[in-house]
């Protein structure tokens, strides 16, 4: 790896982390579309900022553009508050309007502005290492590395300081307000961070990838954990993983880095959507199958409990008495045997004491719906989960 390659991966990773943090809260607040709106509507802010500063990495330009992002959020909320349209419609009204103002501004000044719409939407990570920050003659690294590094440090500091406030206002804005943590302040704080991160990142990775990096890693993490801190951690890991693997995919395919990172994010989400242990598609299907087997098991145990006649308990006759068509009798017998719930003596099935107790407890649970007593059974049996 040469130093440019390392720098590119470093920039991509820092952008991924800086996006994953506000992204996690956007996903939890069901505001994924807002990041899309922000990423487009900062364009006019950028153009105006560029007229003034002539430098895409100038802090003033970043602040101006971020301001447009916050204005977008405010406009969307204003329109929504009229009660005439829903949030998605409001977003659909605001960001094309602002974006097109940006496009017109660029077109009108195309001759003397070094800025084009393609670069804004897609960015060009490959060129990032060429634009270097020189301080009194010393080359201290690519400008975009510094920009995103500073933004990331601020984001992490804010996250650590206001983690509790972010959590409570996202989960229960009413309680947050009644405890004196202004949800509005936190909301606009988060929107400002999201806007600044978007502006600071998109020069390197483009508007579309910024949105993908904010939403996809958080959405993946959401499927895997029920702990907010872990969700943040996982989102960061997924973001960095996609950034680096996407870079090498681009290298290998000789394709756009931003496009490859987005592809990796998409693949990662698909993979997790399918294979996540609890919320994943396959886990859900498997769980339903298990539940079916266990319901049959319970039916079977209950049948044994209720019938003392040997004829009713003969292995070969079980098929007739219980509805076995759905599940193979063998599976159920094996499951019961494995759990020491039945004994098979001379083809006659009988309940063990454990089986007897289990059946009583399970029936009791199903009737009373009293959870506390069967907490310990839950690990063995899917039937009692949720």
């Amino acid at each position, binding site marked *: 790896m040469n130093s440019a390659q390392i720098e590119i991966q470093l920039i991509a990773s820092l952008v991924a982390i800086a996006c994953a943090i506000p992204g996690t809260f956007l996903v939890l607040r069901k505001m994924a579309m807002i990041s899309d709106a922000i990423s487009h509507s900062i364009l006019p802010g950028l153009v105006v900022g560029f007229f003034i500063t002539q430098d895409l990495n100038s802090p003033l330009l970043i602040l101006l553009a971020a301001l447009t992002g916050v204005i977008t959020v405010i406009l969307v909320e204003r329109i929504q*508050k009229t009660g005439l349209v829903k949030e998605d419609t409001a977003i659909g009204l605001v960001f094309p309007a602002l974006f097109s103002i940006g496009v017109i501004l660029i077109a009108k000044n195309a001759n003397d502005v070094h800025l084009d719409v393609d670069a804004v939407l897609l960015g060009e990570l490959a060129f990032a290492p060429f634009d270097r920050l020189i301080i009194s003659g010393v080359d201290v690294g690519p400008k975009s590395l510094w920009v995103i590094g500073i933004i990331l440090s601020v984001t992490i500091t804010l996250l650590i300081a206001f983690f*509790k406030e972010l959590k409570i206002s996202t*989960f*229960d804005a009413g309680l947050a*307000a009644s405890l004196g943590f202004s949800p509005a302040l936190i909301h606009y704080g988060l929107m400002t961070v999201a806007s600044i991160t978007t502006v600071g990142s998109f020069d390197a990775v483009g508007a579309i990838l910024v949105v993908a990096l904010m939403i996809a890693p958080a959405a993946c993490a959401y499927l895997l954990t*029920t702990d*907010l801190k872990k969700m943040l951690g996982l989102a960061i890991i997924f973001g960095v993983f996609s950034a680096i693997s996407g870079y090498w995919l681009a290298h290998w395919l000789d394709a756009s880095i931003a496009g490859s990172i987005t592809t990796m994010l998409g693949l990662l989400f698909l993979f997790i959507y399918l294979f996540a242990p609890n919320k994943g598609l396959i886990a859900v299907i498997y769980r339903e199958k298990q539940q079916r087997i266990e319901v049959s098991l319970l039916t079977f145990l209950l049948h044994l409990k209720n019938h003392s006649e040997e004829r009713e308990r003969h292995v070969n006759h079980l098929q007739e008495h219980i509805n076995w068509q759905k599940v193979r009798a063998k599976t159920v017998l094996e499951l019961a045997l494995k759990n020491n719930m039945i004994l098979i003596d001379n083809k006659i099935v009988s309940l063990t004491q454990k089986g007897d107790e289990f059946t009583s407890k399970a029936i009791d649970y199903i009737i009373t719906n009293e959870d*506390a007593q069967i907490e310990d059974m839950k690990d063995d049996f899917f039937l009692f989960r949720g």
Partner: protein
Amino acid sequence: MNRIKIMKEPSEKKEIPASAGRIAVQVDDLTVAYNYKPVLWDIDLEIPEGVLMAIVGPNGAGKSTLIKSILGILKPIAGSVSIYGKPYDQQRKLVAYVPQKGSVDWDFPTTALDVVMMGTYGSLGWIKRPGQKEKKAALEALEKVGMLPFKSRQISQLSGGQQQRIFLARALVQDASIYFMDEPFQGVDATTEIAIINILKELRKSGKTVIVVHHDLQTVPEYFDWVTFLNVKKIATGPVKDIFNDDNLTKTYGINYKVSIQE
């Protein structure tokens, strides 16, 4: 049946005069609007310290809105609220709140214990993080509502009644003087309802003021000693034995309630 229970109340109420006299919550000329459409008109309300009060009224009467305005969650267009004589902002730590169930995101990645811990955030203030002391308080509150075995459960995996108990525990952990609860009995079974009302009665016994939005008119005389009738305007407020009558019920709900109450 209920008539008899109303008769029983006074003996239980003897404890109240000891702490009565002070006004816990005072609402003056409160008008609240959503998008300039008033949903609460000119409400005057005095809640004496140490009562267990029901707020009753039909759906959309503004019960939740009243509580939210008292707690500063909504800004009124007119009027004022004071808690023990001072604005809410200065008295936050004296007040605990259990919101109506639909108002939180149940899929949020957090556990029962974590939600209860949120009750301690108010006394922590900005930036400071909860530690062992807060965790201990949260565990005690969970124990009190019988939810300790569920402390690590993700909240969406709890039943409706269990979720309600978690909210109650979160309010208990705030260790406040005044408790506002928006329909704590919504969707809970008889056992949980009794467990909750016993905890509320215990709170009142220790001198706290408890204000509960309540829909089951049958149980008002049994559970509460004070009641407020609300339907956009305040219809009446006072001791259950004095004002919980057909006249006020009819004024609030617009139909004759006589039959259903005596059942």
